[in-house]
Every structure is written in structure tokens, then in C-alpha cells.
């Protein structure tokens, strides 16, 4: 959804711009890319049968596949790099924010359309962006523009169990994996980089990788999920 055809075009423009920038640097090289797969691992607190007689080891419930869509992979130590603003949306549906997490570039606007036949509210207490869109009914949408990089937690004042995360980056090297957990960060400047996979609940994992010009570096993330109650 985020990487639509239109966005790919924007990306191409961005990569072109980046190439110009890199060209100006003394050690200018061709940009590389980072590819990999994010998977939700075996629960770290899973119980394992210890009894000799127990033949039935509890089967570990794996997290639903869609959980990988709540992960944002991004280059943590990326230099500030201009990227075109985007337009994203987080819908309010069935008393949930859908999707629960979006990643956008600085200057982007996120819309919050209300699909539920009840009032919803959207507010944030984050340093990055503090706002309160007030209450609005079904069919109405209100948007918020994010001009500072950082993480923004969004809540509904009416329904205290609803929460969503908006991650705002001042560079274009971030991605949300597809249903299979595959992701690709392209146009990454060559060199040593810290790449982070961030999950709102499961935590985050950072790996050090070397990106070489014109080549795709590979890195996989395994995020643990807590035991199901």
C-alpha cells in the first residue's frame, strides 16, 4: 500500500537526487541495497516439557503471519537526506487503528478516516508531534502533517485500548515488510550501517551490516513473541 506505483516513481527521483549527492562526495560510489526477511520467532518464554513421561510437548503457537506487517525496518544511522513527503492513512475500523503502524518521510500527512459507526478521537502526546484531532463521526477524516522525525504514538481518547504508531524519518531508507516478511531498502549509501527492525510490542533488533555499492546486502531479523496466555 505504501509502496505504490506512484511511490516507486518518487523513489526513483529520490535515488537520482541521492546519486547526485553521492557524486559530489570524494568517496562517491554507486549506492547499494539491503534485503532480507523479518520473521516472528519462537516465543522466548515458551514452556518445554521436562517430564520423561510427558509425550505431549505443548505446541508453540506461532504469531499470526500479519504480525510482520507491524515491523518497520530502517537504517538507524542514516544521514539526514531529503525525501519527498508522502500521504498515508490509518483508518479507524472496528475500534482499532488499521494499520497499527505507518512509516513516513518528514513533511508527510497521515489521514485518519473513521469507518466505524461511532465517534472516534485521535490524539498524541509525543514530543515529535503533539496533537488532538478531536472527535469525529463515521465517514469523516482528519489528517495530521508530521514535520519532525521521530516516533509518534496515536491514541483514541474515547477507546482507551486503541493505539497506533507513526514513524517519521528524515531519510528514505525504511520499509514495512510484505506479508511474507520480505523487505528491501534500496539506494542505501555504501558503508557500515546499523539496520533496525522495530516492532511496537516485541521490541527492536539492530544489526550491523556492510553495504557495498551496486550490491544487495542481506540481513534477516527474528523477533521473539511472548508466550500466548
Amino acid at each position, binding site marked *: 500500500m505504501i509502496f505504490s506505483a506512484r511511490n516507486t516513481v518518487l523513489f526513483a527521483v529520490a535515488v537520482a537526487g541521492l546519486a547526485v549527492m553521492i557524486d559530489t562526495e570524494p568517496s562517491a560510489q554507486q549506492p547499494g541495497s539491503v534485503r532480507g526477511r523479518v520473521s516472528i520467532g519462537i516465543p522466548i518464554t515458551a514452556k518445554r516439557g521436562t517430564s520423561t513421561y510427558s509425550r505431549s510437548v505443548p505446541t508453540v503457537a506461532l504469531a499470526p503471519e500479519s504480525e510482520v506487517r507491524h515491523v518497520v525496518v530502517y537504517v538507524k544511522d542514516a544521514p539526514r537526506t531529503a525525501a519527498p513527503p508522502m500521504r498515508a492513512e490509518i483508518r479507524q475500523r472496528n475500534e*482499532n487503528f488499521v494499520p497499527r503502524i505507518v512509516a513516513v518521510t518528514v513533511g508527510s500527512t497521515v489521514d485518519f478516516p473513521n469507518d466505524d459507526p461511532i465517534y472516534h478521537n485521535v*490524539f*498524541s*502526546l*509525543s*514530543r*515529535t508531534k503533539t496533537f488532538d484531532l478531536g472527535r469525529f463521526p463515521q465517514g469523516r477524516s482528519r489528517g495530521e502533517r508530521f514535520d519532525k522525525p*521521530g*516516533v509518534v*504514538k496515536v*491514541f*483514541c*481518547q*474515547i*477507546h*482507551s*485500548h*486503541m*493505539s497506533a*504508531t507513526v*514513524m517519521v524519518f528524515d531519510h528514505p531508507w525504511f520499509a514495512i515488510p510484505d506479508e511474507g516478511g520480505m523487505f528491501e531498502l534500496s539506494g542505501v549509501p555504501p558503508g557500515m550501517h546499523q539496520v533496525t527492525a*522495530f516492532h*511496537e*510490542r516485541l*521490541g*527492536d533488533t539492530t544489526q550491523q551490516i556492510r553495504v557495498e555499492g551496486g550490491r544487495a546486502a542481506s540481513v534477516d531479523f527474528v523477533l521473539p513473541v511472548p508466550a500466548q*496466555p
Partner: protein
Amino acid sequence: MRTPPRLLARTLTVTFATVAVILTIAFIVITLDVRDRVRAAETDKLRVSESVFTALEAKRQQDQMAAMATLAENPTLKAALDTYFTERRFSGSSDEQLRATVTGEASKLAAQTPADVLAVIEADGRIFTSAGPSASQWVSGETVDIPRGAPATFQSVAVLPTGAFRVTGARLTFGERVIGTLVAGTSLDANYAQELSNLSTAGVIITVNTSVVARTVPESVARDLVASKLTAGTATLGDEEYAIRTILASGPARIYTLTSIDAAARNATRDALVAVGLIALGSFILAAIGSFILARLVSEPINRVSSEIATMTGAREFGRTLALTGSSRELDALTVAFNDLMRGLSAAEAETRSAYIGAIRALAAALDARDPYTAGHSERVSTLSVMMGRMMNLDSKGLDVLRLGALLHDIGKIGVADEILRKNGPLTAEEYEQIKRHPALGARILRQVPFLAPHLPIVELHHERPDGRGYPFGLRADAIPLDARIVHVADAFDAMTSARAYRAALPVSVAFAELERFSGTQFDPACVEALLAAMPSSHDIEEPALAQLLARQMV
């Protein structure tokens, strides 16, 4: 010698003592029984009230958990807390304004709960912030041992270095994501113990790690409870037996409620014993009254009979028979026996009396017989006197006195020499003086016999005259007893109508005339009249023997 006790007292004592012994035994048995029953009942009651309290307390805790679950939905608190952690994770720096926001919300929530402290605990068990009166004991950053993971609400005990708290917690979540825990803590201190004690109306002991942190019962009781390691049931703690129940056993903390069975039973037993005592007192009083009535029933007729006998004795009415009381067969038998005895005695006395009278009559006849002219004189005077007495309406007793007195009137002549008595010629003055001594002499003889005392005046005074010229004392009219006056007239009449050695018998009419002539001077007029009235047809009687015959018939 000691006087024996009254029958009333004795009956009363025996009856009442018996009843009292029975009542006392019954009272003791009932008392022991009541004690056991009351104790069993009180123990049951305490068990029930303790279970009720335990159930209520469980409900209260559930309500608290429900309340906490509601409080844990505070959107601002959750949003601020989640934002705080997410930002810290993402950027490594934290926004203390968000912490203040959480603290502010926690303070507002703390004001809504009666808890001593309301704290927000991070997912790793550290205190994020706290509010409420005991907030100072919950220092940010310290780790608190509370249950992790499920369930969403829980109860436990948190032991901090500064004290133990009973906590009710609720998770702060966004869907499945747990961002922390909201806990309300109540300090396990004397106040809480007192509050629980008030709610349960029982004693409360709170222990943490088997040391007593709060109690509403004496120290020795708390010490014994800890030493006994009991969790429920009954046990003797201190000096009394207690019903014990554990209302909280969480981690190292225990809360016990305990009630003294002895104390509860004491009041109930006292009430029961007061009731039993009142019944016993009433029974004693009734027994006393009953005994008294019974005793009276027995002794009162006896008293009546005995007082009647005393009256009879006082009045010398030995002929009277006692009435039957009808109160009891025994007493009536006794009365009948007494009456029979009295009748027997009276008969014996009458016999004795008639024997006396016979002897006296014989004596009088013997005296009269000394002089042939005076033979039968005493019998005739007696007959005449009784006739006159009847005319003068004397009662039978008076007539008896008169009859015997007249028979004896000349008994003193026993001391007068025969020559004087039988002398044909006129008496010398000296001889006459001898004759005149006979009344005093007779009186002297009669004084020896108490039984003849009533007749004494007749014997002594039958020669006195109304004009005072009689002998031996020369008494006048009314000073002379009636008996003596009657016998005086009868004596004179018989003397005149009897022959003497020196003269023939005077006719009755002459004798009447003589009597009438000297009536008022020598003779008492009433007596003379009575004699005339008693013998209306005897004017023609010439023969003294005839009169004697007549008199005999009339006796």
C-alpha cells in the same frame, strides 16, 4: 428443757428443704447443660459469621479488582505511559513531562480510591510512579514483586522495605500489548487491621513472614496463633478458645480473623443463666409459699382445737364437746377421742360428786338424828330452799349450791354438846352462846374441803338477819348472800313447823304469819314471799310429817 419447734416451722422446713434440694440439683444440671449448649451454639454462630465475612470480603476484593480494571482504562494515563516508553525505546531519551502526566493521572485516580497508594508499575516490575498518602514508600525505580503476566487483574501482597501492602492490580494494555500495571495498595498496618476488625466484628492479626505487623487482639494471643501455625479451626490462644479463619494468604503475608468463643459464650451464658436463675428464684418462692400453705393446713386446725380446749379449760366448761374441724381424719379422731375422754372424766366427776353428796347427806342426817326433834331437818330445809330458789329463778348451778349448802347448814352443830342440843328447858346465855358458834364452826370444817367451798357462805351466814341482829357477823340485808337468806327462812320455817321437846309443832299458817310478821327485820322479804308462793296450798298442812313427805317427793 428446750421448747420443741412449732409444727409450722418444722413442716415448712422439711417441705421447703426437700423442694430446695430438688430445685438446686435441677438448677445445677440445667446450668451445666446450658453452658455446653450455649458454647456449641456460639461456636456455630461464629463460624457462620466468619464465613459470611469471608464471602463479603471476597466480594469486596472482587469489587476492588473490578474498580481497578476500570481505572486501568484511563486513556490519558495509558497514552502518556505508552508514549513515554516508545519514545525512550526509539530515541533513547525520555520525556519527563510524560512521567508527570502519568503521575498526575495516578493522583486523580488515587483520590477516587480508598487505597493508601496508587502506583504504576513498569512491565519489568519497577515502580514508574506512585500517588496517594503512602506514595513516599513507593519510590520510583524500586522493584516491586507483583505477579507478572495473566490474569488481567490480580490480588497479592507487595513487601517493600518500608512495609507490606495488600495490592489489587490491573494490567495497562493496548489489546494484547501490556505496557505496565496499575496497582492500588493498602498498607497492612494497624489501621487496616482495625478496619477489617470493624467489618468482621472479630479480632484481626496480620503477619508478614510469620512476624506480626498488626493486631487488634492481645499480644499473647497473636504470639500463640503464629506459634500454632493454624490456618483455620479453633485453638486455645492466650487463656481463651478462639475460632480462627485465614482471610488472606498471599506470599509472605497472612491475615487472620479470630473471635473468642469464650467471650461470646460468656455473655450468652450469662443471659441464659440469669433466665434460669430467675426461674429458679420463682420456683423457690413458689416452693416457700406452697410449703407455708401446707404447713398452715396441718398446724392451723390443731391450733384451733388447742385454743378451743384452752378456752374450755379457762371457763371450766368440761361438759362441752369439741366441734370436729373436718380438716383431717387424724385430727377428727383425736378430737373424738378427746371428747370421749372428757365425757368419761365428767362422768367420773359426777360419780365422785354424788358420792360426796351422799356422804354429806348421811353426815347431815346423822347430825339431825342426835336430837329426835330435829330428825330430817336438814333434808327438809334443803328441799324448801330448792323450792324457794326455783321460785326466785335461780339457775341449776345455783340450785345445786343451794341444795347441798342447805343440807350442810347445821354441820357446825357437830361441835355443840348433846346436852345443850337436847335440853328441854330454856338455854342459859352461855349455852345460847355455844349454839351461836355453830355457823363459824361449820365454816371451819368446810374450809378443809375445797370442793365444798361454794357452800361455805350458806353454812357460815345462815343465821344473819336483814336488820343486822343476826350472828356471827351481824351483816345487814344486801351484804348477806341470797343463798344464806333463803336457807335462813327455810330453817326458821322448818323449826317452827317441827315439834320441840318444850312445845308442839306450830301449824303452817301460824308459821307463815310469823314469817310475814318478821319479814324485813328477821327475814328477807323476797325469800318469805318465795316460800309463800312455793307453798300456796300448804296452809292446810298441819302435820310436819306430811310436809316432810311432800318435801321428799319434791327433791
